[in-house]
Each structure stands twice: as C-alpha cells, then as structure tokens.
C-alpha cells in the first residue's frame, strides 16, 4: 500500500492504577480512511483515543502523526469528546462553543476575531445548526449538542479527526447527518477515527475497522476483516446472528 500513514501507534500500554487498560497496541492508520474502533465496554476504546491525543499519559509507547511526534503535529488533529464529558449547563452559547475550535490555532492570549467567527458560523451551517447559534447550550437537545461538538472540530480544519462515540444518544436523522459529514471529510482526503458501538452499521458507514479489547485484535479494511471470527475474538461470544443480514 503506498498511501501515507496518518497515525502510527507503537507498543502503547496504558494502565489505571494496576489494571492495564490497553496492552501493547501497535496500530497503523492509513491516510484517508473512515475508521471505526469497536470493542466491548471497558475495552479501552476511549482510552486509546485519549492516549493518542495526550490526554492520558501512557506507561509506554509512542504516537506519531505523519511520522512526527504528536506534540509537533497538534494542529493537524481535531477531537470530538464524548458528549457527556462536559457540563452542558455551562453559561455559554452554541456559537461560543464552536469558536473554541479556533483557540488552538490562535494560541495563547490572542482573542478570536471576525475571521474566526466567520469560520465558526460556516461550521455551524455545515452541521445544520446555524439557526441555533445564540442558543444557550443547555437548551439544545442531545443530538444538537453532538452537532455543536462536531462543528467545533470542523472549525479546527484538521487532517485527522478523532471522535468518541459521536452517535451516542442521537436520533436517526442526526446520525444520518453526522455520517454524511464524516463521509464528506473522507472525500476531502481527511482521516476520521470514530469510537463506535453499533456493529450493525459498521459495514455501511466505515471502510476501515479496528477491533479492540485491551489488546488489538485486528485492524484493516472492513470488507476483509469485519467477520464473525474477529467479532467473536473481540466480544467473546458468537456474533453470527447479530451480523448476518
């Protein structure tokens, strides 16, 4: 394969206290894929993303983004955290949250100006939330909050997007809207990595998949490796019934 490697993870091991959460993960994610990370609860899916992004400090291992250490490549990476990770009663508006996506490129102290505002409004429009720009964030529905988070990542204008369960608790319409944006990102040559729970939709939404359960079980194109064998290895029970369509 001659496409570039967007994310390279080597020997990544993470532990909370004594219990290993991720064990010796090696992972190469090629540029331009839309990848799902699947695995049971407690498999370390979120932890994997968080350690790649430097939110969690691993015990061992290295992370490279386009062949350079992550710290030097931050501007190439955008992150959509789990919706539940923040307090939505925080006193701020939808537009304000999206503007936060511009803070990284602004750096310390400098304030966002007209240019940043324009980019944020465009991102809001892309996720279909322009009409809600001045809405207090607690007054948004779960799906709308998720779209705001997505818009905040879009405004970062990155090459690689990490998303932690963007489909959690959203209805079918929002799920469709989000996956369309993700597919557009892929079309634009971006790499999108998504922690995903719904195994049924993996073949439809994604072209790349990583099976994770503390250890990496398998990673590769969905059409090659998304099979009963890998599912059984990852989840420990036979998945034939669930996946056979």
């Amino acid at each position, binding site marked *: 394969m001659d496409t570039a490697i967007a994310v390279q993870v080597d020997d990544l091991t993470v532990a909370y206290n004594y219990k290993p959460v991720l064990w010796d993960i090696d992972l190469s994610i090629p540029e331009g894929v839309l990848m799902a990370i699947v695995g049971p609860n407690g498999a370390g899916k979120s932890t994997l993303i968080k350690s790649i992004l430097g939110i969690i400090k691993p015990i061992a291992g290295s992370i490279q983004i386009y062949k350079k250490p992550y710290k030097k490549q931050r501007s190439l990476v955008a992150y959509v955290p789990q919706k539940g990770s923040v307090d939505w009663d925080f006193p701020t508006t939808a537009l304000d949250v999206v503007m936060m996506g511009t*803070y990284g490129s602004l750096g310390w102290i400098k304030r966002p100006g007209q240019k940043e505002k324009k980019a944020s409004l465009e991102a809001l429009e892309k996720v279909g939330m322009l009409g809600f720009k001045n809405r207090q964030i607690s007054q948004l*529905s779960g799906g709308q909050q998720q779209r705001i988070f997505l818009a905040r990542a879009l405004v970062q204008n990155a090459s690689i997007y990490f998303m932690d369960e963007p489909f959690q608790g959203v209805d079918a319409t929002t799920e469709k809207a989000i996956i369309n944006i993700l597919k557009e990102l892929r079309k634009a040559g971006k790499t999108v990595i998504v922690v995903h729970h719904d195994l049924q939709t993996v073949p439809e939404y994604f072209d790349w998949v990583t099976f994770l359960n503390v250890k990496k079980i398998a990673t590769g194109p969905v059409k090659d490796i998304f099979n009963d064998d890998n599912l059984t290895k990852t989840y420990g029970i036979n998945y034939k019934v669930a996946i056979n369509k």
Partner: protein
Amino acid sequence: MNLKEYIELVFTDYTLRTITLGTAVLGAICGMLGSFAVLRKQSLLGDAISHASLPGIAIAFLIIGTKNSSVFLIGALISGLVGTFWIRGIIRKTHLKSDTALGLILSLFFGFGMLLLTYIQKRPNANQAGLESYLFGQAATLLENDVWIMVIVTSISLLILLIFWKELKLLLFDSDYTKTLGFNTKFLDILITTFIVIAIVLGLQTVGVVLMSAMLLAPAAAARQWTNSLSVMVILAALFGALSGVFGTAISASYNNLSTGPVIVLVAGVFVLFSFIFSPQRGLLFREIRFRKNRRDLKLHKTLSFMYDIASTHENITHPHAIRILNNFQGFTKKSLQELEDKNYVKIDGNMWSMTEIGYKTAANLYNQLTNSKDE
C-alpha cells in the same frame, strides 16, 4: 450607632470608610474568582482551603509573637496552599474520592489550628487577644494597609482573568479538549487555584475561617441565575459580592460590632435566595408560572383538536354539535370551553357548540406546529 448614622459616617469617618472599602473589594474578588470555583465544581475546595489556613495564622503568631495581619496572611497562604496540594495528592495517589479528601484535610487542619489557638490563649501574653476573631471575622480590625493589599491583589487577578480569559473559559468548559489544543492545563489550573487560595486568605480577617467559602460561592451561585454568559456572570458575581460586603459590614457595625462574617454571609444568602426565586429564566417563580401556563395552553389545545376531529367529519365545519359529547373528553371543562369562545375559536349557542373558521385553521395548524417545533 444605628444604620442611619453609619451611612452618614461612611462618607466622613476615615476608619469606617476603610472598612467599607475593604469589604467591598473583598466581596468583588471573591465573587469574581468564586464563579470559577463554582463552574469547576470545586465549591468545597474553598471551604477546605479556608479551614486549612487556620494553623498557618496560629503558627505565624507563635513565631512573631504579635498580631500583624500581613504576616498572618502569609502564614495562612502557606498553610492554605499546603492543604490544597495535599488534597490534590490524596485524590491522585489514593482511591479516595475528592469529597473524602476535602473533608479529611478540612477537619485535620482546622483541628490542628484550634489546638494551637487554645494553646496560645493559655499562654501569658497580652497580645493574643482577638486572635480568635479569625474564626468568624471582624471587619473592624481592617487597616488601610490591609485594604491596599486587597486592592492590589484584586487588580492583579482581574488582569490575569482578562489576559487568560479565553484559555480559562475553555478549561472550565472542557479541560480534555483544552489539552488537545496544546494549552498547558496544569499551568492554568494552578493559576486559577492559586488566585482562589489568595482570595480566601484575604477574606479570613473580615469573614473568618469558618464561613469564608460562602463568600466565594454565594455571589457566584446568585449570579448564575441571571445570565447565560460567563462574562456577565463574573461581573454580576463581583457586584453581588461587593454589595454583600458593604451591607454586611454596615449591619454588623451598626449593631454593637457583631462578628462580620456571619452577617456578610447572611446578606449574600439573601442575594442567593432572591435570585433562586425571582430570576426570570431559571428562577423558581417564573418557572412555575411558565409551567402552569403551558399546561393550561396544552389542555386548551387538546380540547380544540378534539373538536377539530369532530367538526372535520362534517362537510360544513361550522356545523353545531352538542356540548354533551365533549364530556367524555379528558381535559374538557366549562372553563376551557369559555376560553376557546373568548379566543373566537368556537361559538356557543345554548348547549350546542360550533367551530369558527379561525378555530378550524388554528386547530389544523396545531399538529404541524407540534411536529415542527420539536427538537430534531
């Protein structure tokens, strides 16, 4: 001295002006930084820090042997910071939850402080008198020097807030995300925590160890009720804090020098209570009013749409029907029928009702409205 005399004196009496200015500035800085403590869900940290500073004051007295509020301030600051870092250490290094760590440090440090205080009081030293006023605060002991320190610290923290506003806001809302954007969250965290500790320590002389945390939290909690913008919240909290300080001191000075701490805190409590009830968006009163109105409207709409279903079975929509058939419908009352007539949606003729054109159109639109206004 009564309240009226006090107000007259504030403008003429030097001491009183100093004290009033001091408590106002103190209230402002506490409200400002308290907003951050509240939004970071670190409300209890303030309580732990203020209690943890007591041994520092006592040790500072033991070392220098006289009362000197500036030296006490440094003692309190050191022991407050030690307490804070121990709390963080306990949370990080053990399996204990933050409430346990806070409670533990709070009572241990406070207990040690009280021990030292009683030890000091047993000693033959005339200078010790008044040291216990640090428990509940005594604004009357404020000197011009103390007020200057407050003003300087407040200005510095205001400056810091303005400079790092964007970063601090981001940290408050989403600290993980802040990290991924490349900001040093540890630095920001230490910065804001240090200033919270400083604000608490500044207030000890006036409000006292025991109640200081309320000074931090009450104005912020009240301010949150009135606004959905962080900047407005911080400004309002500063204002509420300053007013609590001024009124609290005025009342306490007017009534035979009551301990200032409890009075200021009670005044701040009045702000909180008022805000919880009367703020237009989040207040209990207007929420209840909105709730009742919505319920009444909904009942009315239900009746109207039920009538719509009946009327639409006829070619002529204004065809009269017996009121009796509405009786089976849940939510129907004479009053709601009357209201519908007042709105010109239906006509009543004896014991018959008929729908008007307007009523028919409104009812037809109801369903569309319901589905359209629903959140996606």
